[in-house]
């Protein structure tokens, strides 16, 4: 029993650490009633292409709320620069939507999507 504990406790600890460090890919996926970051970005891109700015603004609010929840889950496995990069892209996207700037809106949407792809990779 003692030998079992001496071996199993470190093994379980190491597995737990690996899960925390590698859990980013799983934890960034939508949980509960979240729509999911990539899907929301896609919807914003469509709204910007159609110049549907009110809908884009509503979708941006959902994106911002979802992102705040995701940060708490992925902060232990993702690098700070990617988290900050995505936060910055989302904040800038708000400005582009308010200014109804289609070109900047699309650029920032794809930039946010790229940061999302690299998050926890």
């Amino acid at each position, binding site marked *: 029993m003692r030998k079992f504990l001496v071996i199993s406790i470190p093994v379980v*600890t190491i597995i737990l650490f690996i899960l*925390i*460090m590698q859990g980013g890919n799983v934890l960034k996926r939508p949980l509960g009633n979240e729509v999911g970051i990539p899907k929301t970005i896609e919807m914003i891109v469509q709204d910007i292409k159609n110049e549907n700015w009110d809908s884009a603004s509503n979708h941006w609010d959902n994106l911002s709320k979802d992102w705040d929840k995701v940060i708490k889950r992925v902060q232990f496995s993702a*690098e700070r620069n990617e988290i900050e990069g995505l936060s910055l892209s989302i904040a800038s996207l708000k400005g582009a939507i308010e200014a109804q700037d289609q070109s900047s809106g699309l650029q920032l949407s794809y930039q946010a999507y790229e940061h999302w792809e690299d998050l926890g990779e």
Partner: protein
Amino acid sequence: MSEGLVVVVRSVIGFFSLLIFARIIGKSQISQLTFFDYVLGITIGSMAASLATDLSSRAWPHWVALASWSALGFIMEKITVKWRYASKFLEGEPVIVIMNGKIMEEVMKKMKYTVSEIMGLLRNKGIFDVKQVEFAILEPNGQLSVLQKPEHLPLTPQDMKIKVSSSGISSELIYDGILIEQNLRQLKKDKKWLIKELKKQGIHDVSEVFYASLNPAGNLYVDRYQDRLQSVLDIGDYKGPY
């Protein structure tokens, strides 16, 4: 993102990973370390520090590096234990630096040791005259093992043909005012006996004792919290804040 919390979690990961890996590698004594073990330890420690505080990169690559270096250290350890030929190359081997009072200059040059360093190591062993040394061996961990010439070796009871009894290893009976009953049982004694012995020394309760031990020959050593010394010697050579 709560940076403080992330650093705490990553520190816990680094700390316990380091502890587990260090236990697996198995070097428990700093004095056993070769120069390579020492460098390996510093490198692994540096990786653990980066894992905890470098938030600009993910924890995972740091942890993988930590695990890889530990695994390599473990493999090297196994190789040196199982394969003496490799051990000679990887860990080095003991070399004679003084023989019959003569310094082996060529060996010292090869080992990159100066005479003053060897003299310092000799003085650490309590030897101030090279002529007294029959053999001085430089160990792979940097320590000097010295065999003095027979005429300079200390006299032992065996030389004098005096019979001595083994004092054995003392067991702690009381530490910090708390009785260690397990050790008392091992020595086939009980609390009643101990209290009787303490009373003989004017002690009425176990809590008055800081440390007590008993050796197999039956000698009880007792140190009280109040040492009742008339004047305590101060070895400080200049005045300080306390």
